[in-house]
């Protein structure tokens, strides 16, 4: 899931390319809409969305961020939020919700707050027209992928903001390199953990840390990425 998107994302070098990559995510993630909205530490905003421009202008014109339960629930937080758990009961909030649904946003949604370095904040949202049962199944299957993808998009946006000449070179610790090397040689996790004299949980956490640094979706993808970047000794 999403490997091709992440490979495309790794090639992105400017905001125009990032916009186009993000806009493909609604198909990749099998949702109605996606929104990525970032506020830098100096207050600069950057947003990409598949929402209809009429709705975006209406939202901004009415300053709906003041009452939007999603924004209010995610600011200064770090746990992902299913729109189901938010309070949509006030009159103004209900009106806002009906307008959003009429504008094609969908009635279901999931939002992931992201805390970047020195006060940078981003919010990644997917929305859908699924019914409750479909949505429950969807979020069970997709949430981890959504969380990872949203953080990788944010890392890329920060990298572009810093300037391409300062693109961060991935550096793995020797233990992370060891773990990926043994997997690349065809060992399973138990064998790799055994030969490094660490527990399998420890190995899994080292692989997961490496996966995040390599912006990879899963273990196989992380091994492939590390190989391509010449980080493994195989």
């Amino acid at each position: 899931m999403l490997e091709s998107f992440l490979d495309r994302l790794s090639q992105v070098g400017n905001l125009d390319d990032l916009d186009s990559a993000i806009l493909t995510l609604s198909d990749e993630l099998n949702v109605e809409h996606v929104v990525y909205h970032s506020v830098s530490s100096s207050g600069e905003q950057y947003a990409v969305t598949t929402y209809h421009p009429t709705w975006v202008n209406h939202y901004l014109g009415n300053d709906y961020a003041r009452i939007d339960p999603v924004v209010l629930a995610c600011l200064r937080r770090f746990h992902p939020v299913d729109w189901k758990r938010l309070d949509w009961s006030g009159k103004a909030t209900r009106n806002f919700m009906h307008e959003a649904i009429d504008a094609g946003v969908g009635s279901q949604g999931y939002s992931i707050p992201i805390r970047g370095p020195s006060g940078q904040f981003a919010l990644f949202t997917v929305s859908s027209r699924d019914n409750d049962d479909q949505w429950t199944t969807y979020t069970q299957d997709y949430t981890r992928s959504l969380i990872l993808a949203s953080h990788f998009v944010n890392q890329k946006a920060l990298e572009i903001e810093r300037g391409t000449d300062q693109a961060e070179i991935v550096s793995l610790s020797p233990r992370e390199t060891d773990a990926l090397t043994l997997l690349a040689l065809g060992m399973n996790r138990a064998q790799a953990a055994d030969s490094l004299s660490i527990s399998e949980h420890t190995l899994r956490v080292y692989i997961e840390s490496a996966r995040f640094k390599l912006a990879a979706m899963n273990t196989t993808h992380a091994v492939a990425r590390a190989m391509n970047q010449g980080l493994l000794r195989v």
Partner: protein
Amino acid sequence: MLRYLYADQIARHPRLNDTMFRDRAAQFSARLGWEVSVDDNGNERDGYDDLNPLYILWERPDGTHGGSLRLLPTTGDTMLNDHFSHLTDGVKIQSPLIWECTRFCLAPGAGAHVSAALMLGVLEAGLNAHLTYIAGVFDARMIRVYRRVGWGPTVLGTDGTGRDAISAGLWPCEESYRARLLSKAGISSEVSNLWYDRSFGSPIERTAAVA
């Protein structure tokens, strides 16, 4: 009862807030002798408390603190990565699917069920956030407390000896640990869900809400 409160929400619970930071001073400064800073009001606070962490707290019927711990995402600053990477073989543990748990604290006289309830809270938060692991830094002598509540950590490394010993460890966020923690804490599944929903909102069917 269990409460899940971000730092900017806890001010609305002044009694809980004050007693937590005071109990932390008693545990980490007075009892364990860790080099932590205690302010003029007797509160133990550090820089990570300024990052708007999520606290899980056991609140007693009189509104005071019975025990607590602190969670932060490992994609930002963490104690583990800033100060204890010698306990993790030099690996910086960073993933949006791993949070860090620190400052596990019990009020004087708090029973074993409070430890179990706090760890239940960690598991509930972890499962709801779809985490894979919780990583933690803790007083090494807590390992047996964690094991006794049925959710022991995989120890990554330990530094120091006796009461100065500090360990780093991992807890897998898996549903299979929930029943044991509920039973050790003496809490039913329904009540645990209710406490979680009180802090994070109850799930309401959207199809019905919209119609």
